[in-house]
């Protein structure tokens, strides 16, 4: 009986721990970004292989980035014209594509030094957290603003990275729009491009 109780207690503690890990990020946008950066820094400066780093960074992105929202945003008005099956396929492809580009961009930095500077509340839905990638002997300093969606105040999500004033979400959206417009608005052309990128 005692053993059963101990086992239950252990299971309970594990589940509490697992839950606390799942909601580990702060609800304050500035602290939220700070925590993500710290977590990413530990991963990037570790001696792990690129694959392990990419996997761990993907896990962070899945928890902190509004990937589904970004998928819809980057598809623009086209998302209203397609079937639910096509939309589902697109969501799946986009997630894979996003995680690959996200981790690829980050793993280029082995020891990034990013300083969180300030947070600017734009409205109740958005806060811009301003950070700076510190200058090195090879690279100039880079301003990176994180557009954090704060409508669900307990669960902030990143919706855009604005590098030196340039929105990556907007760039992505225009890139997809260009692929569609140069291929007679054929969604399969976009799918092919995404699949090609994911599998390369």
């Amino acid at each position, binding site marked *: 009986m005692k053993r059963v109780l101990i086992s239950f207690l252990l299971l309970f503690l594990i589940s509490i721990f697992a839950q606390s890990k799942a909601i580990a990020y702060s609800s304050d946008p500035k602290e939220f970004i700070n925590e993500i950066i710290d977590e990413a820094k530990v991963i990037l400066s570790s001696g792990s292989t690129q694959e392990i780093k990419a996997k761990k960074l993907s896990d962070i992105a899945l928890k902190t980035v509004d990937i589904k*929202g970004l998928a*819809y*945003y980057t598809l*623009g*008005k086209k998302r209203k014209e397609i079937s639910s099956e096509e939309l589902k396929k697109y969501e799946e492809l986009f997630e894979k*594509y996003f995680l690959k*580009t996200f981790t*690829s*961009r980050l793993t*280029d930095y082995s020891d990034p030094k990013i300083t969180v500077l300030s947070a600017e509340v*734009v409205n109740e*839905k958005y806060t*811009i957290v301003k950070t700076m990638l510190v200058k090195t*002997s*090879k*690279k*100039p300093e880079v301003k990176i*603003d994180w*557009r954090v969606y704060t*409508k669900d105040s307990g669960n902030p999500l990143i*919706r*855009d990275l*604005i590098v030196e*004033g*340039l*929105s990556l979400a*907007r*760039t992505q959206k*225009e*890139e997809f*729009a*260009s*692929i569609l417009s*140069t291929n007679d608005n054929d969604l399969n052309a976009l799918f092919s*491009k*995404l699949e*090609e*990128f994911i599998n390369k």
Partner: protein
Amino acid sequence: MVQKRIKIIVCAIALVLTFSSHTFAKEKYSANECFEKFSRGTLKFNQALDKVIFKPIAKGYRALPVPIRTGSSNFVGNLRSLLTLSNNVLQGDLRGAGNTAGRFVVNSTVGILGVFDPASKMGLEKRSREDFGQTLGVWGADTGCYFVLPILGPTTTRDAVGLVGNVFIDPIYQLTHNTETDVFVGNDNLQEHNYYIYKGTDAVDFRSKNIESIDSLEKNSIDFYASVKSLYLQNRAQKINNSPIADKGQDDSDWEEIDNQ
């Protein structure tokens, strides 16, 4: 003579616009294509040229000791600031003009011909560069269409006109190309090729600071041409609107629709 007339016309337009209304339209973030097929081809040509010429030079430049790179970057940046100054004035940005002029005077003297940047330490902060394309944008000229020029890269109709306009209002160009000035200075140090060495160094300096970011963009784009176009237009809009965040004024209707789904 012709140059003098053009200068007078440009100044007159600037004065009229500066002292009339200041309710210029906000710069757009988009532009139609002029001739996309040609532009896509030109971008590929530029990429190939970059791979064999500009990128290796930029890598070689980066191998130089940091003080040499910083010094040459400061030096060309200081010369370039004169073009910014002309445009500050043409845009009616007198505070900006004061800052640029102050920086130029301090860095050219205390900073030994601009090699060092004591102005920043004195509180005269480095601001973004201005060119005649931006000035035309501030005056309300339409973006026109987008295309890619060989070697020079992405541009729009307005910015291409701006490139020509830069020549007339860039004091360094005038100093190195105007024979009267050469005679006045009385030596050969200001010959035309010095202008191209300065412009070339400036371009190599820029390329060397962006090796990784351009590599990353090439690696992670599924349509590199569209990415370059988007980034170029966002960057120009940001500069013309003098907004620290190009994204700030973006149309959020798409996000609102997504949120309400």
